[in-house]
């Protein structure tokens, strides 16, 4: 659990972070989102004390971060940044094993852990262990970056625009992988991004920042429905909000059980989103879809009314 | 680009002259020092026991002129040949020679200039000509190397854009490649001239008469006053020229 009480940071005359109070629960994926210069990265870096806060207090599991030795503190917190910061003179395996080695784990255990993480992040050990960072693609390098941050099994993971420099397809894949990883590991993650789509698709809770202050916070649907002001609304994409929301809701949540009627000719997967369902309807000019499970067995149906009604319910 | 044009308009002639203050100050000091034949009493302090304390075999202005002439001719030729060669090997027709020329330019720079000067003598004999040739050959290397580096570092997009706009090969060279590479080329010329001024002084050992002369004569005869006179003048010449380049580079 991370708590910020009235935290302030000034750089010279500029106030980068202006009295932020925030509580991030254990196992929560909290996304700080906002335009560049809004203070989101500064906030993140004050948690592991790469930047020291000027005013207020930051607590980690109830203890002020200043009470920890900064080096010990950082070894307990995973940290991932956009440009990966992988050490160019070390192999992938050595990069991933950094923190365990700093913590003086026995050599065999470090190697075991490194291999476990490489498998977890889809990096075949034989192929990648001895490569150097410059031999990796952007996506691969960022996987190594995440593996390195997870190496000592920290409770908390800080991620500063980790996928910002990747192409859209790789970015989406890694977002998906992060969601799956989080479903298994239940870390407390603070994730900074300026990309609202990324924020909406990852966040348990969004914290929108502007000019060093928190403008609004809440779950993705909550924000979409009820933006606090015009700034948040514009960040959310104005007229596209409907589609954005539909992208967050699964077909399974809105479908009805199979009725007595004939099966509709077009099918949609149980786990697909409402926006995908809408797209299928538009494309085939139908108003009813058959919902199928992973084995392609029909388990329900979704009508256009039902799809639209989602908003009302 | 636009801002420098605006700045230039706002700058008064006085301010413009002030930018050249450092090189001009060195130059003035150099010319003043060339008149140090008058300062016999001062050098008397360094060498109280010898008869002649001021180098008189030829005037300091003549030596300075000789020095500048040798370095000037060699450097000018080196610039023409060096930049020309680098341009030639970066054109499609000469590209075959690019790897060899660029390797030669970097390997050649590991040769100590003294050794090059010494090797020129058996081939060319004593006197001013071998020095000019040696300076020219050695001075080529940094110029070629920097011109190649300057042209080579121009991003491919810039090149493509220039050609895409319909510029001819000559226009691309004159209006895009050379202006963009100019600071790097100028830095190469500066290195070349600095080395040449120093190496030319050594030419006194192979029979050229220039500012190295008083130093060599002083060393041979154990006359420290001569050494100081030559050393001060060469040092000031080098500083004046170098600060001139510094000024040029900062504008570019």
């Amino acid at each position, binding site marked *: 659990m991370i708590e910020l009480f009235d935290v302030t940071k000034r750089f010279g005359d500029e106030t980068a972070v202006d009295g932020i109070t925030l509580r991030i629960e254990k196992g929560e994926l909290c996304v700080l989102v906002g335009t560049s210069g809004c203070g989101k990265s500064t906030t993140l870096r004050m948690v592991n004390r790469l930047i020291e806060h000027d005013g207020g207090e930051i607590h980690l599991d109830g203890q002020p971060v200043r009470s920890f030795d900064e080096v*010990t503190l950082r070894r307990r917190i995973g940290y991932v940044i956009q440009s990966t910061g992988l050490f*160019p003179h070390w192999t992938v395996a050595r990069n991933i094993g950094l923190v365990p080695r700093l913590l003086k784990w026995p050599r065999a255990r470090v190697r075991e852990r490194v291999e476990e993480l490489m498998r977890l992040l889809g990096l075949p050990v034989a192929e990648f262990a001895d490569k150097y960072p410059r031999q990796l693609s952007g996506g691969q390098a960022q996987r190594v970056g995440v593996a390195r*941050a997870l190496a000592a099994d920290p409770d908390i993971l800080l991620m500063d625009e980790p996928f910002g420099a990747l192409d859209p397809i790789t970015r989406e894949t890694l977002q998906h992988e992060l969601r799956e990883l989080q479903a298994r590991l239940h870390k407390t993650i603070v994730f900074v991004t300026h990309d609202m789509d990324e924020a909406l698709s990852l966040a348990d809770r969004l914290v929108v920042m502007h000019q060093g202050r928190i403008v609004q916070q809440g779950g993705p649907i909550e924000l979409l429905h009820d933006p606090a002001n015009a700034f948040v609304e514009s960040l959310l994409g104005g007229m596209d909000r409907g589609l954005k929301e539909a992208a967050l809701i699964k077909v399974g949540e809105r479908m009805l059980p199979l009725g007595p009627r004939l099966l509709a000719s077009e099918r949609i997967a149980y786990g697909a989103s409402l926006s995908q369902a809408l797209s299928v309807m538009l494309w085939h000019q139908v108003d009813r879809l058959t919902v199928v499970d992973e084995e392609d067995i029909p388990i329900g149906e979704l009508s256009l009314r039902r799809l639209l009604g989602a908003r009302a319910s | 680009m636009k801002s420098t044009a605006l700045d230039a308009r706002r700058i008064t002639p006085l301010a413009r002259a002030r930018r050249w203050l450092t090189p001009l100050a060195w130059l003035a000091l150099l010319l003043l020092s060339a008149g140090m034949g008058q300062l016999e009493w001062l050098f008397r302090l360094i060498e109280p026991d010898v008869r002649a304390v001021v180098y008189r075999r030829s005037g300091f202005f003549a030596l300075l002129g000789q020095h500048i002439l040798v370095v000037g001719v060699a450097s000018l030729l080196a610039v023409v040949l060096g930049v020309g060669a680098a341009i030639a090997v970066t054109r499609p027709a000469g590209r075959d020679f690019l790897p060899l020329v660029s390797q030669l330019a970097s390997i050649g720079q590991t040769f100590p200039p003294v*050794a090059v000067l*010494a090797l020129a003598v058996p081939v060319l004999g004593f006197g001013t000509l071998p020095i000019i040739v040696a300076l020219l050959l050695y001075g080529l290397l940094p110029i070629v190397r920097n011109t190649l580096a300057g042209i080579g570092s121009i991003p491919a997009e810039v090149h493509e854009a220039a050609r895409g706009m319909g510029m001819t090969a000559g226009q691309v060279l004159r209006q895009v490649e050379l202006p963009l590479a100019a600071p790097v080329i100028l830095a190469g010329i500066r290195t070349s001239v600095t080395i040449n001024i120093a190496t030319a002084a050594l030419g006194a050992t192979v029979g050229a008469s220039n500012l190295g002369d008083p130093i060599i004569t002083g060393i041979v005869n154990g006359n*420290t006053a001569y050494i100081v006179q030559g050393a001060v003048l060469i040092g000031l010449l080098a500083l004046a020229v170098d600060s001139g380049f510094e000024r040029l580079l900062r504008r570019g």
Partner: protein
Amino acid sequence: MAEGRPPPNWVLLSLMLGAAAAWLTLDAVSVAANRIVPGTPHSALDVMNGWPALLLAVPMLAVAFLAWRPHDKGLRLSLAAVVALLTLLPLWLSAATSVLVTSDMPQARVAIGASLWLLLFLLLLALIELRTRLGLSRATAWLLLIPVVAGWWVALSLWLEPLALLREYQARSDQFIGALGTHLMLVGAAVAASLILAVLLVLAMRRHAGVRRVGFGVLNFLQTIPSLALFGLLLAPLAWLGARFDWLASIGVGGIGWAPAFLALLGYSLLPMVRNIHVALEEVDPAVIESAHGMGMSRRQVFLQVRLPLALPVVLEGLRITTVQAIGLTAVAALIGAGGLGTFIFQGLGQAAMDMVLLGALPIIALALLADALFGSLSECLRPGGAA
């Protein structure tokens, strides 16, 4: 591109045609009865009716022919031909010497002439070109030079006694070894001292911006002063110090000698060293440093495990520049009585004895190239990310 045939390699073609032309027309050797009299020049075709010279011209023309339609196999063949030529040249020289120097000329001296020098130069250029085209590694290139060096070594030790350069060396081999030692000592001492001083200076510069500004200003200023002038300017105060303090004079500090040479060398060496160490430590990717801190590395760990290994190749590059520069400057230092290989150059120039000049100049060039290659390959080995 329907055309299957590669375009001619104009570089090799012109190098080899030039080499053949120079070889067959210019003077290859000159023979003098003793050190004083001028030599009689001979072209390669004069020796043994010219057939060995023509035989050697065959591989040159063959390489030129292969260069007309270059392909991988042809280039490898050319490489073999060039290495063979470089190895055979000393043998030809030996044969020429044995024919031209008769037993009634015990003091005879054979000097290498323009065509042989030019041929050597052009063949080395061809070697560089072939190495680039074939993408050979540094190590392979060195291996290729082994037969060449062996050929020259065998010829020099067995048959080339009348070679002027060798005679010059034999006349003063003790002096040569001594000069070489002095040269290496001066270079080594100056480079080592500048490395230590530069590290201290950079540490101070990283603390205080003022030190950085002034430091670079002074070092740039020093670097601009021509070597002869700096040596000269140091003579006067050191002579004064030597005359004033006996203990300084007793360790050799005086106007002339090692002291001004060492100080000037140190001054010149500091700029490239400081600049490279400074750049090396400053320009490590900030993201790498940040993530190192973010991972919980202590300051010491960040410096020793991240900054230093990443900086090392750049520092080595500084060491390379400094060493190569110092080798050349030490030659100039001979003028102010510091000894070293430059002594031969300036004595030779003074006596118009060109072979003596070569005795100084060639080893200096060899030393510079060797230092360059040594540090170059060392920093290549240490390049971050390894050679993969």
